[in-house]
């Protein structure tokens, strides 16, 4: 899930603030410690100098009361471990250690050196004349940052950080809220439900200049969308009207054409039947009085009229294909193809054809129309392998883009790919009268494929067989 701008700003600023506060705290602690150490050093130096200066009169007067008073006063400072005031020969005259008084300072064994952080020595000098020496030993100064102070500083820094984060959060929320509202409004914009004019700009009324500008631009964009939608709607309406008009025209023309075609076909059948019937009557009644040539002419008349009848039947069937209502259902193509091939084998028991059908080929289609298409394709394969021994027909399929493509491959006569475009035209026959047929079969297959929103294609080489692939909607697996 992506973070919002406000969340990123808050997190980013928080992280930067945390790092900055951390660095600042460390810097302050380091600087303060260094400064305190320097101040402590200066304070100690000042203390010792003051003691040396104050001891002058005591040393000069051998005023032990004065020297003792000085030592006692200085010893109030808890930093001080011990003090020694000695004459110029090093003889201790006053000290916080009474047992050292009267001894030479340099001969005294000072056992507690371990706890001493600093031992400062200063000569008590007046006008360049030394009257004595003072020594002051200082304890290790307590680290101000070793106790609760770091916790206090850390706590204060944390509180400051929280305060800053909360403040920044509120500020960021305040600044980004119009942007969020604008974003929500824009994300809900739909061509069918564009916001009212000025609605987007109103969302950024109290926002920053950038957000207001963005809202203004969005408003302009939406305004253009509104205009475009109006234009599209107008165009759609115009197109719809044009399509409806054209469709009506086409439907009328088609109906007229089909009606004409049907009428022509139907009306042509009657004279043809008359020609064929009278030719047969002529043959039966006067055949024995006709010479051989006359009978041959008569037979040709009959054959031509029968062939014309077949053509008219084919035209009528093609016409019916375009008009019939489709009943889509799940169809087992493998079973259908097997049944057709078995029937063909029964019709032509002398043919030796090796055929193979892939199991499980199914499509969502009209069974009657697909039966016609498959039968056309398989009869073609059967027909064009007539002179091949052994003849082979294979039916296989594969899924592609939500369609199932059924391919019928044979090892028959094949065709030249240069003429492939002509294959699916009505009454187109690439092999002339060498093979029987009306030339309407592949046109029928293509019409059926188109009615199923499918397609048909063909590949082949002369003398090396042909492959026809019919793409149909795949059957639902459920």
């Amino acid at each position, binding site marked *: 899930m992506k973070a919002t701008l406000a969340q990123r700003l808050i997190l980013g600023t928080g992280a930067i603030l945390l790092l900055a506060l951390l660095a600042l705290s460390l810097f302050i602690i380091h600087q303060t410690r260094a400064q305190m150490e320097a101040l402590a050093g200066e304070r100690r130096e000042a203390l010792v100098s003051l003691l040396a200066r104050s001891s002058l009169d*005591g*040393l*000069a*007067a*051998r*005023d032990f009361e004065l020297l003792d008073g000085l030592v006692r006063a200085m010893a109030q400072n808890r930093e001080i471990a011990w003090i020694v005031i000695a004459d110029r020969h090093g003889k201790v005259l006053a000290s916080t250690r009474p047992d050292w008084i009267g001894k030479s300072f340099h001969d005294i064994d000072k056992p507690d050196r371990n706890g001493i952080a600093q031992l400062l020595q200063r000569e008590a000098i*007046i006008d360049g004349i030394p009257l004595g020496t003072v020594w002051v030993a200082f304890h290790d100064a307590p680290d101000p940052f070793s106790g609760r102070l770091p916790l206090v500083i850390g706590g204060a820094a944390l509180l400051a950080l929280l305060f800053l984060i909360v403040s920044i959060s509120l500020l960021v929320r305040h600044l980004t809220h119009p942007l969020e509202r604008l974003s929500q409004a824009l994300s809900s914009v739909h061509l069918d439900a564009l916001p009212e004019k000025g609605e987007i700009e109103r969302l950024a009324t109290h926002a920053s200049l950038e957000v207001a500008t963005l809202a203004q631009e969005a408003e302009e964009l939406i305004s253009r969308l509104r205009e475009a939608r109006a234009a599209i709607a107008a165009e759609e309406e115009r197109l719809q009207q044009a399509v409806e008009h054209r469709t009506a025209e086409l439907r009328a023309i088609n109906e007229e054409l089909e009606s004409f075609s049907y009428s022509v076909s139907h009306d042509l059948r009657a004279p043809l039947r008359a020609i064929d019937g009278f030719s047969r009557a002529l043959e039966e009644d006067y055949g024995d009085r006709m010479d051989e040539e006359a009978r041959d002419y008569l037979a040709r008349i009959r054959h031509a009229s029968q062939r014309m009848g077949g053509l008219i039947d084919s035209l009528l069937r093609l016409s019916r294909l375009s008009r019939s209502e489709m009943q889509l259902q799940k169809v087992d193509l493998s079973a259908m193809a097997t049944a057709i091939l078995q029937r063909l084998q029964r019709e032509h028991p002398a043919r030796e054809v090796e055929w193979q059908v892939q199991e499980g080929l199914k499509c969502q289609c009209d069974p009657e129309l697909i039966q016609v298409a498959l039968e056309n394709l398989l009869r073609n394969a059967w027909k064009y392998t007539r002179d091949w021994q052994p003849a082979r027909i294979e039916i296989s399929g594969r899924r592609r883009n939500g369609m199932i493509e059924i391919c019928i491959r044979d090892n028959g006569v094949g065709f030249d790919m240069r003429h492939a475009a002509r294959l699916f035209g009505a009454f187109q026959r690439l092999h002339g009268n060498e093979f029987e047929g009306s030339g309407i079969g592949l046109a029928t297959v293509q019409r059926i494929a188109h009615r199923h929103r499918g397609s048909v294609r063909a590949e082949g080489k002369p003398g090396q067989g042909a492959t026809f692939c019919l793409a149909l909607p795949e059957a639902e697996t459920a």
Partner: protein
Amino acid sequence: MPRHPLIALFLLLTLGFLPAVHAERPSDTAAPALHFGVLSVAPPARAVAKWTPFAHYLEQRLGRSVEVIAPRGFERLTRAIEEGKLDVFYINSHVYYRLKRKGLAKPLAQMVNLNGSTFSRSLFFVRKDAPIDELYQIEGHRMAYISPLGAGAYLAPRARLHEEGIRNTQEDFTRNFISTIREVQTKPGTVGTLCGVRYSLLGKREDLSNLKVIGESEAYPEHVLAARPDLDEALSRRITEIVIGMYDDPEGRLVLEPMASMRISHFTTYDPSVEKVTEELFRKAELDPGS
């Protein structure tokens, strides 16, 4: 050249040089330090600083360490002498007289001031605008003395006033010269007294133009270099010789020169007859030297 004479010469030079070096360096182990006390109105440290060159000179000449001590006040000085913590001390004639009467001092030498005299006189001075021009007019006024143990700063002027019949004064003690000057400069009715030589010295570094001198005391003896009575006589004599001989010794002269700030020109043989002068001053001042 044979070796033996060279070695002998080296040993002779080395051994002969050692005593000379030894004599020049004070040795703590050779003799105990000589404690030299100074009773001064100056702060002890300042007094010690001023007397240290003198002590070093003495050290070198005596061949023993000399420690300068500046006890605070007469009581401590007395106690230090009684306890044997001071051997030699430099004091004014007033203090010397008191110690002498207690049997705590014997004279070694006497200071000769910058005027070349073993006597000085105190000056009475007031502010120029003060309505006091003669000593008799001091009656009823405030006296700004330095210390009740002063000779020129108390004993001699008080004796003079008493001699003049002036007894009705308010006696205040300022503890040092400058304070006395300031008291007079800031309070028109106050009368200050200072040793005449000191007054001249102060005039070289202080603006005293707003003051006027209205009289002077009788002469009083200058400071005395004294010793505790039981100090070894030979040592006492030796110290006296050294101190009095300073003026004739170039090194001693060098030490004496900065001591001019203390009015000291040099030291001379003590004349016991000066004690009579002090005694007379005590009498006139109506002070008890044994108090």
